[in-house]
């Protein structure tokens, strides 16, 4: 479904990605792990067209997307839950959900306000509050809801649970499991090894702009020294 091949990215003269390969298949949950500054967000930004790669290719459903502007990539069926959530502060919660909503591939059962509120009941009570008055957990749920309202084929989360309270984290993971059960493909950056091992199908660990290790959940669980070597936890 998503196939990233040998992408290299530069900030000015300094190279940050060195030939990253990554694949997400239909219905899979794929994780991207690694310490801070190893190139995870840069990889996501390359996929979303926010920081296009200098070389390499990115294909989505067998169509090259690495030369497209970011709105065209989103329209191809990718939706981003960005780092820092980036809720529109001057819009109400409800407006955040509907402003960019779309059903471009004419799904028969598209995401609606009702479905998002059913998934995150806490959002319903806050629907008329402005984005900048929401708590971190509410903002993260809203960012996921906002992405779902574009009816994507692939949901990408940059830091799914960072900085959230344990209860909220659990709720986010439950939500991602429910989305997986509905056969939505998910690419997720996070540091929570246990949750990722549970719901992930395939895992990538990045180090210094390269994929240092990849494998399935069983392999991840069976290789305890990965933690020390690459994740520092």
């Amino acid at each position, binding site marked *: 479904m998503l196939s990233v091949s040998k992408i290299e990215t530069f900030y000015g003269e300094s190279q940050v990605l060195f030939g990253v390969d990554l694949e997400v298949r239909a219905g899979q949950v794929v994780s991207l792990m690694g310490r801070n500054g190893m190139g995870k967000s840069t990889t996501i930004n390359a996929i*979303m*067209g*926010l920081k296009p790669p200098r070389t390499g290719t990115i294909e989505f459903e067998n169509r090259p997307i690495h030369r497209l*502007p*970011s*709105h*065209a990539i*989103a*329209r191809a069926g990718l*939706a*981003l839950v*960005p780092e820092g959530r*980036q809720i*529109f*502060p*001057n*819009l109400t919660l409800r*407006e*955040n959900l*509907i*402003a*960019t909503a*779309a059903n*471009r591939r004419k799904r028969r059962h598209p995401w609606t306000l009702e479905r998002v509120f059913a998934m995150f009941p806490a959002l319903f009570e806050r629907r008329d509050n*402005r*984005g*900048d008055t929401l708590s971190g957990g509410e903002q993260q749920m809203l960012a996921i809801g*906002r*992405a779902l309202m*574009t009816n994507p084929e692939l949901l990408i989360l940059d830091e799914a649970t960072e900085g959230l309270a344990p209860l909220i984290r659990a709720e986010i993971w439950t939500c991602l499991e429910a989305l997986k059960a509905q056969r939505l493909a998910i690419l997720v950056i996070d540091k929570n090894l246990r949750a990722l091992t549970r719901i992930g199908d395939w895992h990538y660990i990045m180090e210094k702009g390269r994929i240092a290790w990849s494998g399935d959940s069983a392999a991840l669980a069976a290789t305890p020294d990965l933690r020390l070597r690459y994740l520092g936890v």
Partner: protein
Amino acid sequence: MTWALLLEQFLNGFQLGVLLFLLAAGLTLVFGIMDLVNLAHGSLYMVGAFICATLTELTGSFGWGVLLALPATMAVGVIVEMTALRTLYARDHLDQVLATFGLILFFNELTRIVWGPEGMVIPLPAWLDGNVEILPGVHYPTFRMLIIAVGLGVAAALYVLVVKTRTGMLIRAGASNRAMIGALGVNIKTLFTAIFGLGAALAGLAGMMAGPIIEVSTGMGEEILILAFVVIVIGGIGSIRGAFIAALIVGLIDTMGRSFLDVLLSAAMSASAAETAAPALSAMLVYILMATVLFFRPQGLFPPHGRQ
């Protein structure tokens, strides 16, 4: 000083205020969302007035002149955006100021070539050319009342557009986080061209409304553009509501100051001193207001929250 005169000057100030609002609405959206300083906004005010003058002459009707000139001015705005301004978004403000100043010169020269060096007059139809009795014994020009009505109507329509519609949500979302609405599938280029076209039509409308009162002439956009910039800075860049309120304040203060400051000052100083000081001071009033607002609220009265 009579109450009738006070009311008349109040309405004059209000009418200048709504004209400023028509001009400032587009300016504040363009500055707020795309971070573009567009000095050539006043040129669209001028072009709108000239096109309207010509179309009024051709059709023999001011109403048709305005109706046809609106889409024409919008088209001019869209062409300017797509050919010239689009290349400037990523540049810094100084580049934008230089380039759009160039556009002012271009448009002033263009109107001189097309319409000649002397200005044009937009004749009003008979039903607009008279006065209405707004209070017993108080008469006020019908056309100026129409300007106020049109301005308030546009303000109401813009309010509905920005607050109630999805396009309005995208406009507000774009003012706070442009990159994010792109990553959610919205083509910001198309959205911005549309916003610019709308802003151009509103600036043109202001020119068409001002045309019958002042003469339509080359360079008419520059003076009012400065006031429009004062308005958007006071109101908070990117805020339609701020532009509306600030435009009325600026229009009222400017007009009332020019009419009554000498009377007020003569209460505190000799009549001759007041007569000398008042014109100088009244010309400065709106800038003093702007400086005061900026001192207490550097982001303006109604900043759209979350702009970085």
